[in-house]
């Protein structure tokens, strides 16, 4: 009886997050059919990765901001500003590519510290601070660029978002290196899962049965390897995917396994209780925004590299895509709930939909309407779930 209640509880807890995976699979399936399989072709999969990487990078930072109960409207402008700084350093001054990257990251950190200061220490709502930042940093971008676009970047810089690692181990029709890297990653994942499972058993925690555990791993491995195979048949392993993968892994750990992550959830879940439990709320809020600035700078570098230049209007509306990714991915509008992995899937749902509709030649106007409705439905689903959980009390 109690075990059943426990199971049910686990299910309702996870419905919010697992629902999103089911939706993701369904959307992929739908567009695969609608595009006659074009969606999953090697070239297109590579494209989706390249095209949405910077939104996903932004969404990683954004989900942390949202879990803590804030919002950041300025990231689009920060992407533009950091890209512009990198362009000035590399294109105008002719400095090496890495100096441009470092300059962009430094500017991102400064922007984050600025916004974090106002939010955390002065106590102005993030909505206002970042709305101001949106204007402020857009204006700065225009100043830095002196109202003109800068391009092109040298080849080395372009490689950040457009480069591939391939051919290192040769291949025949597909790139062996890509497959090897993915195989290593899967092995690492399986190993860590196995260790976590053993630890849980040691601490006498409930675990799923071993066959189920293996089945889950095999399923994940199959999907990931299929994805890797498609990549390997195209241009190989995109460098930006490595950047993205490292960031996702790092922030997944930060949010789930560190004291900092716990404090972020605590602040978003109940600010007063967090304060009275000794959480240094101001400090945490400050670093959340510094981190967002840093990730916005990474996205700025990737975007400028991909577009091979810096434009005054770069990154327009990126903040909305990033925010939408988080909410579709199960983050709560009132804070305290959200996951990095959820935000990534949320971003990919948007990406796959956009890409699928582009392949089908659907008009831009319709695409926007569909995206708007999906966001609305995702949050409606979230609220419906919450209400049901509340009624079951």
């Amino acid at each position: 009886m109690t075990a059943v209640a426990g199971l049910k509880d686990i299910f309702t807890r996870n419905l919010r997050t697992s629902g999103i995976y089911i939706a993701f699979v369904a959307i992929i399936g739908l567009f695969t059919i609608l595009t006659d399989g074009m969606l999953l072709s090697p070239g297109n999969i590579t494209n989706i990765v390249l095209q949405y990487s910077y939104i996903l990078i932004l969404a990683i930072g954004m989900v942390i901001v949202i879990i803590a109960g804030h919002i950041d409207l300025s990231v689009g402008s920060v992407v533009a500003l950091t890209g512009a700084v990198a362009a000035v350093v590399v294109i105008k001054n002719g400095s090496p590519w890495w100096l441009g990257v470092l300059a962009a990251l430094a500017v991102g950190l400064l922007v984050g510290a600025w916004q974090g200061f106002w939010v955390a220490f002065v106590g102005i709502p993030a909505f206002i601070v970042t709305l101001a930042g949106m204007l402020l940093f857009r204006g700065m971008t225009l100043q830095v660029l002196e109202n003109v676009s800068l391009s092109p970047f040298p080849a080395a810089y372009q490689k950040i978002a457009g480069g591939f690692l391939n051919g290192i181990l040769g291949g025949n029709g597909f790139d062996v290196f890509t497959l090897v890297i993915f195989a290593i990653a899967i092995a690492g994942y399986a190993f860590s899962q196995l260790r976590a499972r053993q630890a849980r058993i040691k601490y006498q925690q409930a675990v799923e049965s071993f066959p189920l555990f293996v089945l889950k791993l095999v399923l994940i491995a199959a999907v990931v390897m299929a994805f890797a195979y498609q990549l390997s048949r195209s241009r190989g392993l995109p460098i930006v995917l490595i950047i993205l993968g490292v960031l996702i892994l790092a922030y997944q750990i930060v949010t789930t396994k560190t004291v900092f992550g716990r404090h972020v959830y605590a602040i978003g879940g109940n600010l007063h209780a967090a304060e009275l439990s000794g959480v240094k709320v101001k400090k945490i809020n400050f670093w959340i925004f510094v981190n967002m600035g840093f990730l916005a700078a990474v996205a700025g570098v990737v975007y400028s590299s991909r577009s091979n230049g810096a434009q005054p209007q770069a990154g327009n509306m990126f903040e909305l895509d990033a925010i939408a990714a988080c909410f579709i991915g199960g983050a709560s509008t009132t804070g305290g709930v959200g996951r990095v992995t959820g935000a990534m899937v949320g971003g990919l749902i948007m990406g796959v939909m956009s890409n699928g509709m582009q392949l089908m030649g659907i008009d831009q106007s319709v695409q926007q309407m569909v995206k708007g409705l999906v966001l609305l439905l995702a949050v409606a689903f979230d609220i419906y779930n919450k209400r049901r959980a509340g009624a079951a009390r």
Partner: protein
Amino acid sequence: MSTILEMQSITKTFPGVKALQDVNLVVERGEIHAICGENGAGKSTLMKVLSGVYPHGTYDGRILFEGEEVAFGSINDSEDKGIVIIHQELALVPYLSVAENIFLGNEQRGAGGLIDWNRTNAEAAQLLARVGLDELPVTPVGQLGVGKQQLIEIAKALSKKVKLLILDEPTAALNDNDSEHLLELLRQLKDHGITSIMISHKLNEIAEIADSTTIIRDGKTIETLDMLRDGVTQERIIRGMVGRDLEHRYPPHESTPGEEVLRVEDWTVHHPTQPDRVVVDNASFSVRAGEIVGIAGLMGAGRTELAMSLFGRTYGSDIRGRVYLRGEEIRTRSVDEAIGHGIAYATEDRKKYGLNLIEDIRTNISAASLRKLSRLGFVNGNEEIKVAEDYRKSMNIKSPTVMALAGKLSGGNQQKVVLSKWIYTDPDVLILDEPTRGIDVGAKYEIYTIINRLADQGKAIVVISSELPELLGICDRIYTLAFGRVTGQLPRGEATQESLMELMTKERENA
């Protein structure tokens, strides 16, 4: 007397739970009818069925109001018939005026459908006079205390031509004076023919005011007692509620106080936004190891403010005074520092200040001690679960796993989670602010047992409580606070409700 309300074999099920089972309730016209039962017994559910929060069709059974069968689809339907429910959490808008709140949703319209402000304010003034509240109709509600807000809720009910008034724990947040006033008002309303149903945990109030009492236990009607005829005592009601005799409401305990652990001297705290207002005035007190010390005081006496200002200055401004831990002066300028010195403070409002309701039991228990559970900033999740499991068992938190959300637990179990959180910080001094507020008799007993156990382990314990019997029942020594000052201290043997009350109401002596 005729019957105004009859609820016949009401059964209400939620997925997996039978909240009410064949409950019968008969209320006579013009009486004050109390409903008693432990938390989770089904009192509030029954009232929600009656008032239409759970609409007709979602429950089984019949409701007869004034002799005819009714089927309410919403609260509006029941209000139309003259049934008004006042919830425990008051539903007033703080920024609107008293008059606006009274007529919220029932606005007094004049020509052209516009609001007739003169009539609104004039009628509000009349209603305020009826409930004995001396405030202007244009005063914003947020400026008034809880006691007065409660009266405004009643005025609001009167404006709706109420016949049957339902009050859910009306005096839970009130001090003794305000409670007395409210009960008196209920008597007056009764004289005017208004019937009241009152849900309450305060048995002395029930004994004082109710004409009859229906006891509900585990979703079933146990009995209805005629308070006038049967000579019902509090013990009698408790027996009905818990189904057993609680010979002692407080577990027996012998303290063996050791050395002095905490001493506070000349502690002065000013109001956070009105810096010239003194909230705590030169307060001094001390606690010894293994001792349970009570702090009594009326609402507004500065009890919580004293505790929170000590606990990392989470309340107040311009705080002065000295704190000694085992004779050494310490600073507690942040919560972190306070915890570091072994001070813990369990708040009076666990939902607002104590728990993250959307997180699980495990996360809440570890929230104040993550440093202990982590290395290089990484939390040891398995160890954390083990710790939480240990507390779930030792504190008897009723939940199948520690992964259940804190928001889904009953009040008593939530309080046990809060206590676990603070006990796990391994404090020397535990300040417990209203540790049993809003939890049922059985769970209270458990909390008292836990407090005693902690004292036996040598912790110094400070209990802040509005309930004098509770302080008299568990404390070794009781300080009284009045208007921010410590007005006295009495050892267990000498303290009585009367002597405490005298000290709690002591005005400043020819200052």
